[in-house]
């Protein structure tokens, strides 16, 4: 699925103008007038990022963020708000928002953030794809390696030979493009997080 910018704001003019500005830069956009409408239409195949207002009737921006997290949405989230406070910004970032922009939003900054969000989303998608290419056995091995177990212990756990564990382990390293165990752990966490989310 193509990457899209999902704009969630209860103000019609704000939605429309942001959509126009991004369209002028060849982004595809979709507008939603409240968080409920967006979360109803959300599906896990959606790629791109979300731009959401914080103060909205019904479900507000933070509630949307929590809801999306619960249903495993990985789309990067950019908050825009008309009267943000520092504590609100901190809360938004702590909960994993990509950024928190104050209205009136600097249009260049918004473009940069959307580009950044798309790159992040792309990386997520690739990691997910890599993880999906692992066999069931390879996943089991990867999981135990990440837990810090030695090959001998893994072999005993899975009731296979140590040599077989070594083969699976090198396949996992290759498929997830990891050069060290630390790299494997990082790749595993990123991709499995995305995977488990789904």
């Amino acid at each position: 699925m193509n990457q899209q910018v999902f704009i969630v704001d209860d103000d019609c003019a704000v939605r429309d103008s942001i959509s126009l500005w991004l369209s002028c830069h060849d982004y595809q956009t979709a507008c939603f007038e409240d968080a409920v409408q967006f979360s109803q239409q959300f599906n896990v195949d959606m790629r791109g990022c979300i731009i959401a207002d914080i103060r909205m009737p019904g479900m507000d921006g933070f509630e949307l963020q929590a809801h999306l997290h619960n249903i495993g949405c990985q789309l990067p989230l950019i908050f825009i708000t008309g009267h943000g406070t520092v504590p609100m910004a901190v809360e938004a970032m702590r909960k994993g928002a990509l950024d928190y922009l104050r209205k009136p939003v600097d249009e260049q900054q918004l473009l940069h953030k959307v580009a950044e969000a798309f790159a992040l989303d792309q990386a997520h998608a690739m990691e997910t794809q890599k993880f999906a290419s692992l066999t069931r056995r390879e996943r089991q091995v990867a999981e135990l390696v990440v837990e810090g177990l030695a090959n001998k212990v893994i072999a005993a756990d899975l009731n296979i030979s140590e040599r077989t564990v070594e083969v699976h382990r090198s396949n996992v390293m290759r498929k997830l493009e990891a050069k060290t165990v630390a790299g494997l752990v990082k790749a595993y966490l990123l991709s499995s997080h995305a995977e488990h989310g789904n």
Partner: protein
Amino acid sequence: MTQLTDTHNNADDGLQTLFKNLPGMAYRCLNLPHWPMSFVSEGCETLCGYQSQELESQSILWGDFTHRHDVAEVDRQVRAAADLGQPFEVEYRIVPRTGPHKWVWERGRVVDRLKDGTAVIEGFITDITSLRHAERLVGEQREQLAHVERLNTLGEMTAAIAHELNQPLTAIAMYSTSAKLLAQQGQTDQLIVVMDKLAQQSYRAGAVIERMQTMSYQSSHQQDHVNPTDLLREIKDLAEIEAQIRHFTIDLQLPQYLPLISCDAIQIQQVILNLLRNGMQAMQTSACAEGSAIILSAQVREDQLWIKVTDQGTGIEEAMADKLFLAFASNKHTDKAAGMGLGLTIGKAIIEAHGGRLNYRNLSPQGAEFSFNLGIAGQGST
């Protein structure tokens, strides 16, 4: 016979002493233009600087030094009362022989009629200049305090107003940079549409500022004839800025027609704004559902316009009820936007200065209702 004259003289002396000690001037006059006097008591000279003989000989008439702006109105009121045979009370200015003008209060009634029907009036006139000055001073101070409170209210509404302004400003920023790109790409058709949207958004921002401005003005401290429908709609628009942020609605309930009222529009709007904001805060504190309405209504009853604000909050606690209208008493301590607790005190003073009363009652099962009355223009005393 001698005895009788003595008694009469004694009575006369007593009357003279009484007149002398009066804080003003007693008189008898004819209800003719400029009121020729046939008798004035001694207080005359203190009051207007002319001697009683000057007035009694009619070398100068009372109306000659009644303030030229007031003379017609006094004449109208005295004539109206005389025709009905009722006593009258009037307040007006006179220009004494020396010094600045004075405010006087006069009460009189028809005691007799000449053969041609001309009314003979007896009455009493006293100097109320210092009272008037004091009243004006109180009025000015009330307005100064009210103005400070209005600015304070605007300060408290800053967040809501900023939000309301930032929406169109965001749209303007996005539309205008987009317009530049469209122009560079020669997409004229789309450009024209965007230009229209740009204009709409700047009007929208302008309207927000216009709504605020009313509250920032210093009142002229004058009562004008005002259309209550316009007054209520304007203040509803301003309060709505805050209602939107709290996710409440304001339900304005007006009859088809309301008569003009005589009031200081800015001050009355201030009172209503304060009541609406109090109500919304109460509704937020008691966790009213999003979209709940606070009702602003008006109706005419017994020659008075009654304006009512009904919220769905928790109502006024019994402990608060006694000191509700006292300064610095506030049951909004949980709300950061609580302000100084002066709103209701000033509101009460404003309404009372308009000759009305500010009342409240708790509603069952929940909510509070604040109401006040204002005189309809052109009725009762002018």
